[in-house]
């Protein structure tokens, strides 16, 4: 089963309708859309604006403000490498270089076979066990070259 559903305005409107009556509903709606479609396409913005009775500019401003929201679905799996200070102190830069090289992509990139998207993250709260990473929702700490290689293999499998 594919990880995400294909975009349709009808499905999007259903999702928006489930959340539009919450107070300050923008973020819950954006999260819900991204969970289903893997991203928040530009086409979703007028639907949200209409439902919440705010301007399209306000919705656009909100979508683009937050790092989490994407315009296109990510690869099959998303690997987030922590690049904040604690992980830098424990060798995070070398791991980033290794991951980029092994996957053949840069930060924010997706492999050509669309299996893995690589992203930086600024702190997973696992600083006691730096360097840390998250593959989808699974967390990994105390990474070294070997553990990273195993993780990359898992991500690509």
């Amino acid at each position, binding site marked *: 089963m594919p990880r995400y559903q294909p975009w349709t305005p009808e499905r999007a409107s259903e999702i928006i309708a489930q959340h539009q009556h919450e107070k300050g509903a923008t973020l819950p709606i954006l999260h819900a859309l991204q969970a289903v479609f893997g991203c928040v396409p530009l086409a979703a913005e007028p639907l949200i604006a209409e439902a919440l009775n705010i301007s399209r500019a306000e919705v656009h401003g909100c979508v683009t*403000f937050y790092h989490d929201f994407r315009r296109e679905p990510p690869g099959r799996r998303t690997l987030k490498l922590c690049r904040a*200070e604690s992980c830098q102190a424990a060798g995070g830069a070398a791991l980033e270089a290794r991951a980029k090289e092994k996957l053949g992509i840069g930060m924010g990139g997706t492999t050509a076979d669309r299996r893995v998207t690589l992203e930086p993250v600024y702190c997973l709260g696992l600083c*006691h066990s730096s360097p840390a990473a998250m593959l989808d929702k699974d967390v990994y700490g105390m990474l070294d070259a070997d553990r990273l290689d195993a993780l990359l293999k898992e991500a690509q499998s």
Partner: protein
Amino acid sequence: MTVRIYISRDSGALCVGAEAVTEAFRKEAKERGLDVEIIRTGSRGMYWLEPLVEIATDQGRVGYGPVKASKVGNLIDAGMLEGKPHKKCIGVVDDYPWFKNQTRLTFARCGIIDPRSLDDYRAHKGYEGLKKALDVGPEAIVEEVISSGLRGRGGAGFPTGIKWRTVAATPPQQKYIVCNADEGDSGTFADRMVMEGDPFVLIEGMTIAGIAVGATYGYIYLRSEYPHAIEAMNIAVNEARKAGFLGPNVAGSEYAFDMEVRVGAGAYVCGEETSLLDSLEGKRGEVRAKPPLPAHIGLFAKPTVINNVLSLATVPIIMSDGGPFYRDFGMGKSRGTMPIQLAGNIKHGGLYETAFGISLGELVDDIGGGTRSGRPVRAVQVGGPLGAYFPRELFDTPFDYEAFAAADGLIGHGGVVVFDDTVDMAQMARFAMEFCAIESCGKCTPCRIGSARGMELMDKIVAGDDREANLVVLEDLCDTMKFGSLCALGGFTPYPVMSALTHFPEDFGAGKKRLQAAE
């Protein structure tokens, strides 16, 4: 007799294989026909020992760690389930010096109870604070919190009780309790630990806050980088509601209070309280100018208490044991305990809750055990990305809000990140500017533009391009950011930059002499 096995489900344990270890125990128990009960707890905070497996014995819970899934069979063969000695055995966990020497008030239950069990919470003094709060009523609650000397644990250190009194004094209307669980500072994980290991204490703290100020609804703004904490909090909120601890009649009283978890979206600046409120309202997380204070015009323009996770999670013990009990710990104007988080290149990474006053050197060298790499400690960043870098010469600084401010630093949310002698402090200073540029909300010019110019300046300085002149510009820029920014993001970014420059000038290609002359 059933043997009880305790294994953490905290992210910090999961990230080093606690799930596989749990699975291995289940498998061994089934194959060997052993009568065991596996209880998933939060973490004790001794992360270098995770996955830590604890076995209930007559002496107490005996710990083994770190345990590898592949070695579970061997450990059982060696008599682990009877609590027998082994090279992985640390003895009774409560008596283990690293744990025993702490003063666990906020984290009293974390790592001990099952975070998904309200019964377990109540069996360990849970909801005793609320009971007391209901007995004494709103005004006395506020007085109790003021008397405890509790200051905001998010970083600003503002007295929690005073904030509450301000909201309580506003006319009756819809008011809100907002919990700031947007723990974005690198080197910190205490909020995450509470939410994953003892979520009911946060719910109880927020409920007490609601009763104290006349608020009937609460929001926990929880960062999206914490999926396990989100799950744990949602489960706990539902359990509390089912049991009548949230709803129209909290614990059978006439007070109404309910709450929900809201998930952030990766913006560091939303840890700033006014930016967080805008984000909760469904807007871009832009900082608001103060005044008005959130206590007067907060969420949805209503009076709002906004507190950090740790501040709220400390309220139940203040209520149950009294403000004076809490106040008796600590030094100067920093009362009670601080959950200090040891991180980075450190041997014993974890959470150490202790009274204020402990020195930075004790934390790094004695408790932290120095670096994990085995190399000498060169710098320590305290208080997250906006905190200052400290050299070894300042290791006698006591952990105290005022003492750190006097040393041109801040304790922030209590994170301590250790770097060994391979660190390039000019790169760390550049990163501070870069991080500020990435995360700036864009509302005020010193932060939005200053951070971008700061990055360029750092590049020039490192490249040796008119270094002396550019160092003067950098200092001037930092001054503008510090005093001209709307919030702590732009305002505190100069701390890591200037402390790196002041204490480690050799990394900037500058002589120590020039900098001292310039001050």
